[in-house]
């Protein structure tokens, strides 16, 4: 039983917005490509193709990671197979989405908690939750193993390895691109441990009543950003942070409000905190993907029919702005092509010259 199960329709985007405005689901035909707004992003510091980048955050950060990867920028990922496996299968298991296999990290608090855990400064409460089918999940990344784990020990074992790789990733990164997604979170009241999902959504802890809903305000977000930046600086004096705010509305709110004002509250607080924090730090910048996607001039055309998911055109507009601002030509690049797109044929095949020789040998033999 999830806390969202009993909420009224107005608490959900689909029922509270899409169903209320049926024509919003109709795709709008766009004749001309939408141009990025000039001057929207004026970087504080240079980011180059060789800057080692760690990506993390709410789900829009996946687009950032993928675009950096496809353009062959130095985006880190020590945990995913580097061998052109099928994108959809990789994603199903949490690979290739971010710089490590931590899944969506919706808040700066969760990111700080993760880093503190990786370095032994914090031990999250109730790390293993159980699904209705009896399988176990990692409470901090419950979706990365769709089949679940057979035992709690396997969860802990997998997490220990993940944290080891995370440390390596973090220490290799010159820049963390972090996408702020939510202010609403689920928290173990006594210890302050936060979780990316509510009890009952995917799995449930042993004592679900100890987990409560929390909706952070500006001050809390500022404190978390400070903690994140301070921790980065403590590990690497040259650490830089690029913040973004996810333009993706809330799927659901447990605040009691309609999902629209709940979304506005969440994004406003995050945006305000990011803005204030960026102003105060030379090594922290803000990339306005939120504004690119949501500004009124786009008339919602950068959202899919569900008025929530960002279209590929929207992602391209945002990422083109990022790459242009950092001196990259945006229309000439050839994205890395997955082997699956070529029918799995791309392979480290046999030496062509040897192939010729060996068959000539065989021909000669069969002719003699």
């Amino acid at each position: 039983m999830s806390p969202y199960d009993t909420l009224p329709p107005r608490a959900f985007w689909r029922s509270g917005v899409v169903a209320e405005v049926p024509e919003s689901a109709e795709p709008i035909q766009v004749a001309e490509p939408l141009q990025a707004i000039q001057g929207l992003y004026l970087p504080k510091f240079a980011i180059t193709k060789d800057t080692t980048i760690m990506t993390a955050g709410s789900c829009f950060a996946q687009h950032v990671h993928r675009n950096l990867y496809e353009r062959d920028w130095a985006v880190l990922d020590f945990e995913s197979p580097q061998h052109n496996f099928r994108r959809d299968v990789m994603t199903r298991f949490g690979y290739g989405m971010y710089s490590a296999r931590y899944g969506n990290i919706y808040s700066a608090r969760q990111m700080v908690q993760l880093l503190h855990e990786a370095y032994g400064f914090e031990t999250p409460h109730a790390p293993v939750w159980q699904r209705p089918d009896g399988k176990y999940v990692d409470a901090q990344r419950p979706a990365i193993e769709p089949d679940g784990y057979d035992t709690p020990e396997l969860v802990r074992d997998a997490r220990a390895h993940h944290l080891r790789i995370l440390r390596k990733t973090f220490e290799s990164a010159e820049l963390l691109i972090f996408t702020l997604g939510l202010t609403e979170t689920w928290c173990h009241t006594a210890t302050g441990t936060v979780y990316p999902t509510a009890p009952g959504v995917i799995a449930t802890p042993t004592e679900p009543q100890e987990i409560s809903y929390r909706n952070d305000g500006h001050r809390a977000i500022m404190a978390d950003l400070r903690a994140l930046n301070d921790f980065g600086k403590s590990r690497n004096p040259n650490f830089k942070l690029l913040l973004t705010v996810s333009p993706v509305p809330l799927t659901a709110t447990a605040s009691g409000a309609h999902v629209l004002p709940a979304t506005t509250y969440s994004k406003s607080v995050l945006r305000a905190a990011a803005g204030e924090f960026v102003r105060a730090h030379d090594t922290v910048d803000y990339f306005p993907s939120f504004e690119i996607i949501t500004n009124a001039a786009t008339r919602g055309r950068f959202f899919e029919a569900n008025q929530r998911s960002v279209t590929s055109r929207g992602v391209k507009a945002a990422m083109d702005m990022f790459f242009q601002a950092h001196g990259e030509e945006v229309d000439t690049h050839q994205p890395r092509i997955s082997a699956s797109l070529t029918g799995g044929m791309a392979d480290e095949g046999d030496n062509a010259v040897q192939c010729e020789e060996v068959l000539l040998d065989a021909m000669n033999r069969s002719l003699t």
Partner: protein
Amino acid sequence: MKVLVLGTSHSASLRMSADWIKRAYPSLEVDYFSLPGIVHSRSLMIGSTFGPTPSDAYGCKMSQQWNGSLIVDLAPYAQIFHVGERFAMGAVTRLMADYDILEHEERSLRPVMSLSAARALIGSAVYDFVEARHDVFGDDRRITFMPAPYPLARSAKRGPGFENTMSRLNKRHTAADWSQIYEHAMGTSLADFGYRFIAQPMHTRQGIFATQDIFARPKSSVADVGDKVDNRHTNANYGQEIFAAYAQSQLGLAPLEMASAPQS
């Protein structure tokens, strides 16, 4: 019964054993059609014929040179033994060499991957490969696939022809588990498209992911050819072994003449 041996350069070992096959299986009429892997992978079926497209000048030249014809008509054949595809071997073996399986006892400093994820990634890579072959050959229950042989055991030695990935993989205690996952993926993916599958016979292997050196092509070692060492292609003895495995498992035929003893 007419049988076609079709494949990449790895089918050369069968061509080289053609005389033995003729003597050992007198009831079979076996023909051969081979193309280098790169040409084979881009060749197409047109009607009942298979071969390089007319625009593939290199492929046409090679086919003419090796087969005496540009294309082969598959229609007359009762069975087809398809040899030498790699089944995403490069990507899959690197994955197997680079990762530990969470549920396995063996632990190293490699990243850990769950068995479920490994099966899904390998399974999808192999499936995509087979699907691409199905796009070419279509539904054809006559076809039995045997993959390219694993590199020779001597390729574990550093120097020309060194197979880093295979060498690392073959040393792993979990090699047999990985092999089971990979070969199971090949078998099930091929079965999904109505094809049959034979794994490289175990008695031709050294360990799990290597082929015994006795099956090396003649004069292909470092001592013979220096940097041009060939640790991937095999000899006529190997051709005899795999044809015997094919005939036994798919046609129910035993050879009338024993296979030649491999020359070490």
